[in-house]
């Protein structure tokens, strides 16, 4: 008789514990009042730097250095939008860049310039200047982009703020080889400062 009573008591305690577990698990979802408030945040877009013409906001595709004598310095490159009739101008008073760089990204970007090796050994060296567009006093281009015409990567440490422009000047020293025509690619890389 007592065994039966203890057996029933065991089952009763077990059922009670099951109810307790279920109740405990279910209790986790009991929310009496909302303590939730909404927050929101967003990040600006990250976009590559656009290489545009001297005046218009039109993207350029190519930069060309006109033919010169072996070992000559070519300082009148032009882009395909402004054409050869409106080439780069080096001057202490009225200088004009070959292209402008425009930052359409959501934050400031630091500029790194890269070039690939000039084919057929046509170039002896290449230099650059990267200045604010209001600076029209660029008469000398002497920051080294490539000291030997080979591929190079140059972090300029110059930043362009959102929506702003910088003016890029280029100058090429041709090699001593005559009758050669070569190519290279120029890359404008942006990086978060």
């Amino acid at each position: 008789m007592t065994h039966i009573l203890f057996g029933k008591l065991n089952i009763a305690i077990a059922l009670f514990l099951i109810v307790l577990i279920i109740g405990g698990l279910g209790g986790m979802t009991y929310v009496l009042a909302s303590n939730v408030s909404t927050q929101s945040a967003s990040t600006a877009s990250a976009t590559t730097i656009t290489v545009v013409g001297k005046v218009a906001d039109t993207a350029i595709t190519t930069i060309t250095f006109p033919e010169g004598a072996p070992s000559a310095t070519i300082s009148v490159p032009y882009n395909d939008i402004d054409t050869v009739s409106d080439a780069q101008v080096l001057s202490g008073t009225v200088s004009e860049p070959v292209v402008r760089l425009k930052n359409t990204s959501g934050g400031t970007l630091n500029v790194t310039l890269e070039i690939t090796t000039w084919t057929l050994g046509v170039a002896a060296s290449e230099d650059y200047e990267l200045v604010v567009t209001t600076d029209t006093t660029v008469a000398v281009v002497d920051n080294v982009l490539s000291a030997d015409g080979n591929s190079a990567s140059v972090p300029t440490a110059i930043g362009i703020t959102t929506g702003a422009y910088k003016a890029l000047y280029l100058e090429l020293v041709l090699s001593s080889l005559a009758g050669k025509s070569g190519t290279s690619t120029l890359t404008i890389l942006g990086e978060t400062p």
Partner: protein
Amino acid sequence: MYSKSTILVALVLGLLFIPGSTALATSVDRMSLTNLEGYAGKTIKAEITLEGTDLEERSGFWYTNYKEVEGADNRMDITSWITIEPKDFTIKQGETKVFTVEVKIPRDAELGLWGATSEEAAKEGHSGERRTYIVFKDTPAGGNVYSGLLIPISVKVLPSPNPLAPVINFVQQNIITILLSVVIIVLLARPLLRRKKQIGE
């Protein structure tokens, strides 16, 4: 009847509302892939998306880049660990393309941070702490002027996890439920065993 000058003014005003050929380029959905966590001998995968915003179709490619700094140790150049698929791409205005960045951590890689000198490297003002980058660049068809972005990447090599860790975590999180369940089983089993014993006698 409108005069010629009225029509001219209308034309000029109309021109103001014609969208200009604003030059745009290519957007990316993240500017860093730093502090990726993985184990020696394992491969980490991450996705990165480009969106074309230029009016013209652009062609480009991905590559890795190591910024060499004097005195840097051998933990900084992890370019050989990284592959990006697909490597080459063409992208039109409004188009998005997803790329997979795979970082294969060598079996003998020591624990800690690789590819950057600090876990803060992705933050603004910390460019000096970045060493390894993935880079994309593109240009319109026939172009010789590319534009692109340098995206820093770094990896945290973690100690290999205990294979029983998920079980231990489950037990720790549900200890009361487990104990009560054991008590329930004992309470129910005792009368059943007793009844079975009585039937046997």
